[in-house]
């Protein structure tokens, strides 16, 4: 997926979100929550597009689920805890939880637990740029940018201009190096 593909996919995902907004509930009933790190930038881009397409200001929160992970003691070093900042009350809100890649589903599980500790959202929908399969939990995405069938040894690498030196999505095979854009 190159820069253009990425932009088009995000356009489509933003429109899918807009489709799900219920005007009767008012704009303030809906909010985006980006998962650290790249989910945050994707959520920001979706927020900008929704504003551009429909003039709707959707609140945006930032969520780090490290404190809720179930695998952090399996590695030798502790993962860095990043910022969580939800500038609105999640209780009663319809939330769109945004992440870059859905793989085992464990990050989303941790994110859901974190959100539930902050209040009682009316609903949570999951958005991912790439669903690469191999889910280990009964978690799926409601809005998907692209489904990419992968092998367990491969890595889906999402790179965003905000924090990376290039933009796009790559499927990387650790044995033979990069296999190009997916």
């Amino acid at each position, binding site marked *: 997926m190159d820069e253009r593909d990425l932009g088009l996919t995000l356009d489509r995902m933003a429109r899918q979100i807009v489709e799900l907004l219920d005007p009767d509930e008012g704009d303030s009933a809906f909010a985006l929550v980006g998962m650290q790190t790249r989910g945050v930038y994707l959520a920001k881009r979706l927020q900008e597009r929704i504003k551009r397409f429909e003039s709707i200001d959707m609140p945006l929160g930032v969520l*780090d689920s*490290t*404190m*809720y992970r179930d695998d*952090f*003691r*399996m*590695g*030798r*070093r*502790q*993962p*860095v*805890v*990043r*910022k*969580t*900042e939800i500038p609105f009350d999640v209780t009663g809100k319809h939330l769109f939880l945004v992440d870059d890649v859905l793989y085992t589903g464990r990050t989303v599980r941790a994110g859901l*637990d*974190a959100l539930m*500790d*902050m*209040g009682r959202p009316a609903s949570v929908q999951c958005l991912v740029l790439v669903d690469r399969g191999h889910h280990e939990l009964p978690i799926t995405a409601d809005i998907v940018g692209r489904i990419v069938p992968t092998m367990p040894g491969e890595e889906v690498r999402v790179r965003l201009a905000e924090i990376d030196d290039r933009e796009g999505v790559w499927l990387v095979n650790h044995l033979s190096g990069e296999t190009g854009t997916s």
Partner: protein
Amino acid sequence: MIEQGEGLRHRHLLGLATYEADELELILRTARQFREVLYRRIRRVPTLRGITIVNLFFEPSTRTRISFELAEKRLSADTINFSKSGSSVSKGETLKDTAQNIEAMKVDMAVIRHQSPGAAHFLTQCVDAVVVNAGDGAHEHPTQALLDLLTVSDNFDSFDGLNVSIVGDITHSRVARSNVHALRTLGANVTLCGPRTMMPREVESLGVRVTHRLDEALEGCDVAMALRIQLERQGASLFPTLREYHNTFGIQMDHLERHPDLLIMHPGPVNRGVELASEVVDHERAVILDQVTNGVAVRMAVLYLLSGSVENRTGEDGE
């Protein structure tokens, strides 16, 4: 800057003398994230579920003990509290035997407060648990200095070139020692101020400025940390009277007026009218209660970062 997948190079927190700037910064960054948990609807995260922590307090302590206990509870760790009174220590058991008995009960981490310098280090040699020093004699009190650093960093953009003065009984202060190490590591200029009877010899070798005049210590100073005068130690007659101490080394309202940007800190508990005038304690530039809140956050961060090595007990020791 320490990034994802790296973390602390130490396995224990015995003192800050060996912690490098990137490790201190990682602890502070992590503490800011954990502090946010303290303001949530549910002030508890499941991060240390399944980890058992023993709090070994061989010396009386209220706020440090409560702060550690609260940090452990906020992280969902299982905790056991052990204090000197009413335990087998009062029956003559040695530190080593106490520690090994507790170890036999399968404890992952131990927080220790002890009257002897080096007690925390000694504990690392008797048990496999990860050890956190909560104050060992006049040696170090690393989590106190870390919470001081966090409080300073909330008020200033950088430690580099910051002027910090520590005022009081330097000789008997583990808080001063830990702060000197950490502040120097982060690039701050440290001045120590106190009566000659309370100033260790050759303390300049730590790279600090020494003065026996409060006015000199406060000139150009950004942060003044007053140390508690241990009234229980006053049999040693290190100064004539409390009133004289207050008049010579106590920070008073006219100091705040003459230094309009000076921030006042104190590790607590404060003796009002001794280290600080009562009005100074209540002044908006005294951030003593922020220090207390930051204490819980910093201890959460330390426990989290060190818990990574709990299940890697065969790894090499960073200390």
